[in-house]
């Protein structure tokens, strides 16, 4: 497939419905804002430029380099896009990329798409924007400052997005924060190095050929001081909240329990289906399985029959 950093794309089934919907709402709000912001700055050039750049990031995720032992580094692209075209345009571009990966390549789920847009698009873009701007300002406009801030932005965008994934999974009751946060964090601290290095490599080319794209002042790209602070704040918040959540998982577990109240109320699995018992089978678990299989066979049979009858009808006309 086109994209590889699949450990960041949450498939369906891993987020609870409550968490999915909350993340969808956040995603929709920010997509709406970024559509308006980008339209203000680009006007009628918005559609062609954003479309092609989304295709570019999508295709750019194919670019890889061998690390060791068959593993390879890849580009996610949120940091690069944010640095070159600004945070709002980057959100739009990443939304297109992540959306296409879910809708067409099943890289990430449909219900979980809101969460994936939040993690890779929104958090990724804001955090890289905040970090890049702050460090660039600290280091000055020198070449090395641009590269240093580019590396940090790329690295942080990956790590913070991974922490967000871990917290969302923990809030869904899919995993426990005290294990998920450290594992996701450490793994992505390594993966983030690749992202940072690729971002620097890309910036060095753009810096040589189109310096205006890299050093262009923030307002032209639709950013402002508030966004810088917001981006850094997200990074800090997640960096602080994650270890806290993993040290005291009760808070997230409480969320998960609120989410999972439906199945909590149900009791252990095999006492769930007293009415599924098939006559003649004593063991309830076995009876459940048998009833399920029977239903499956009936529906499958009906569907196969329908498909077969259609094929019959189609054949004479050929």
């Amino acid at each position, binding site marked *: 497939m086109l994209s590889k950093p699949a450990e960041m794309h949450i498939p369906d089934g891993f987020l609870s419905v409550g968490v999915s919907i909350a993340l969808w709402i956040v995603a929709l709000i920010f997509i709406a804002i970024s559509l308006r912001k980008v339209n203000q700055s680009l006007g009628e050039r918005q*559609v062609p430029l954003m479309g092609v*750049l989304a295709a*570019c990031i999508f*295709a750019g995720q194919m670019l890889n380099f061998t690390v060791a032992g068959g593993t390879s580094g890849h580009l996610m692209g949120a940091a690069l896009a944010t640095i070159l075209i600004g945070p709002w345009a980057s959100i739009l571009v990443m939304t297109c990329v992540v959306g296409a990966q879910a809708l067409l390549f099943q890289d990430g789920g449909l219900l979980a798409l809101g969460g994936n847009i939040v993690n890779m698009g929104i958090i990724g873009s804001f955090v890289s924007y905040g970090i890049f701007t702050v460090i660039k300002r600290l280091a000055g406009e020198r070449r090395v400052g641009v590269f240093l801030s580019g590396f940090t932005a790329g690295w942080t965008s990956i790590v913070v997005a991974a922490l967000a994934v871990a917290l969302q999974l923990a809030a869904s009751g*899919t995993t426990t924060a005290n294990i998920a946060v450290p594992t996701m964090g450490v793994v992505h601290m390594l993966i983030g190095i690749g992202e940072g290095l690729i971002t620097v490599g890309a910036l060095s080319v753009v810096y040589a050929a189109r310096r205006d794209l890299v050093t262009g002042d923030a307002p032209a790209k639709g950013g402002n001081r508030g966004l810088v602070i917001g981006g850094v704040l997200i990074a800090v918040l997640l960096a602080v909240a994650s270890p806290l959540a993993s040290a005291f998982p009760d808070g997230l577990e409480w969320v998960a329990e609120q989410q999972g109240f439906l199945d909590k109320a149900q009791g252990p699995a095999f006492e769930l289906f007293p009415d599924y018992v098939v006559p003649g089978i004593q063991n309830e678990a076995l009876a459940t399985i048998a009833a399920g299989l029977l239903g*499956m066979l009936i529906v499958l049979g*009906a*569907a196969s029959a329908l498909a077969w009858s259609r094929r019959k009808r189609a054949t004479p006309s050929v």
Partner: protein
Amino acid sequence: MAAPQFMHLHYLDPYQPRDSVVHALDARIKLSLAVAFILVVALMPMGAWALYALLLALSLSVIVLSELGVGPVLKRSVLALPFVLAAAPLLITGGLPTLVTLPIGGGIPISAPGAARFASIAIKSWLSLQMAIVLASATSFPQLLLAMRALRVPKLFVATFGLMWRYLFVLADETQRMLRARAARSGVSGEPGRKVGGSVIWRARVAGAMAGSLFLRAIERGDRIYLAMASRGYDGEIRSFPMPVIPRAQWVVLFAAFFVLALLLGLSLVF
């Protein structure tokens, strides 16, 4: 990438044209039903094995009806399953009673409720994936765009999304050419076990430089595309054909399918 590395990239398109009832169904109905199915799967309680079996029957029937081939779809549907590792901690932290104790170290107890939850998550994810695959394989991209429009996705976004798809193949081809050029110049050996050239940092910078030039080319291409669009009368307004009418039979399919899904949801609440 499993497919041949250096061929033209049109094989990327997941759409597989067939003459099936699922393909004939309006994209708006397909998208709503796929999302409804995934939502119902997500709403299922943990450990509802019989209901999972019924849902599996439902999705298998859709796969059979779509004539995409049960084997290929199921093979594709296990691709995302490695993510299930994310739920692995449940096996240990799920609580009592203990299912088995693994003879590793001092013995790792595997929790029975944790294992049930782990299996439920894996099954739910697998079921959702099957429906998403059928949706993508049985719906052409223009049809998907139409469905997105019908679901009130902003026009500007739909247009951007469509343009991305159109140029994805162009840029993916360009990326492939770059990868081929790199392979030809930086000492990648066909012999297994031979080291690739350069240090890791050097390799990362080369990949980054490729990303940078891809980006510059894309920006320039975007400007050219805009000029071409402007010269053909584009003024920022997205003009599209009116939505085709959904035939009555397809409405029946939609409501019947909703009824079945609601029934399954009802079953999960009752038991």
